């Protein structure tokens, strides 16, 4: 049943497939992001309580949920690499870590810039903010481990174990606003049942979210491509490709 997946475990096939997908992903990301950001900054209504500071929401929430989503994806990749020794899973986990770290940093910075006018403080050591900061340190640890060993398989193993241990942090971030008293407001978008947001705010949010997700896909693909080349540098197909590129 899963036989059709088999050729994609081949680094050469994956490399060329990624190359083919990249222009399409990039175009889609550019379209969604430009529409979404213009909508969010110019056309979405101001919040009745928070005024125009609410526009930070359109980058803060996608960045925060992507920072967790990328970690989750990285954990799945790390798990498949540790259990089934899939080398490409290792390459994809290494490609995801810096992207996740960037989005965690964005979530923290935009959160601080939103917290200052709304709560009166840039930072507070409450559950949501602290657990998100720990997520940033986990990402940095994973990146450091990927670069700490000359042997990429060993590096992937060490980074993978840290990734899997760090998974415990994800539900803590997600449910911190329900488990502890916190300044951070509860979730507005993913609440099931009654939608707690007006549609003229929800739509630009959805477009921004799709745009940022596509951008994540673009950057991870770019890095995945690099990781494949670096890990297969002695293979004949890479040698051939390098010859064609440097001629």
């Amino acid at each position, binding site marked *: 049943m899963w036989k059709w997946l088999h050729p994609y475990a081949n680094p050469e096939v994956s490399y060329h497939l990624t190359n083919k997908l990249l222009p399409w992903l990039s175009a889609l990301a550019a379209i969604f992001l430009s529409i979404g950001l213009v909508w969010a900054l110019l056309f979405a209504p101001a919040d009745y309580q928070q005024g125009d500071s609410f*526009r930070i929401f359109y*980058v803060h929430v996608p960045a925060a949920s992507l920072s967790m989503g990328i970690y989750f994806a990285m954990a799945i990749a790390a798990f498949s690499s540790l259990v089934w020794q899939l080398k490409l899973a290792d390459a994809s986990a290494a490609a995801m870590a810096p992207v996740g770290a960037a989005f965690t940093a*964005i979530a923290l*910075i935009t959160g601080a810039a*939103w917290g200052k006018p709304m709560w009166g403080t840039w930072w507070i050591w409450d559950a949501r903010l602290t657990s998100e900061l720990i997520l940033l340190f986990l990402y940095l640890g994973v990146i450091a481990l990927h670069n700490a060993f000359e042997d990429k398989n060993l590096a992937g193993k060490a980074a993978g174990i840290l990734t899997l241990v760090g998974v415990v942090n994800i539900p803590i971030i997600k449910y911190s606003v329900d488990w502890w008293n916190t300044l951070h407001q509860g979730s507005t978008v993913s609440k099931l049942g009654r939608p707690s947001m007006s549609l003229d705010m929800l739509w630009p949010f959805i477009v921004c979210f799709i745009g940022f997700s596509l951008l994540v896909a673009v*950057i991870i693909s770019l890095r995945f491509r*690099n990781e494949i*080349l670096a890990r297969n540098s002695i293979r004949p197909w890479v*040698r051939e490709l390098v010859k064609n590129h440097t001629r």
Partner: protein
Amino acid sequence: MQFNSFSDFINMGGYGFYVWLSFGATALILTLLLISSKAGHQQIIHQIAKRKQREDKLRQARELRKQQHEHRNKELNN
């Protein structure tokens, strides 16, 4: 459109600094990451090409030494 003038748009109802800080930091971080990820491709290809060159040079040197060695052995035998 929610704003009447460009300065209104920049001002963001008094929250301009915070809004533009957020969007600016996001744009800066993502642009840097995108550029460095894209540039990495050429860098890695360059690295591999360089390593290949070094290996080729080493192999040539080894073959040359082998030839000289054989040559000298032949002379000694004669």
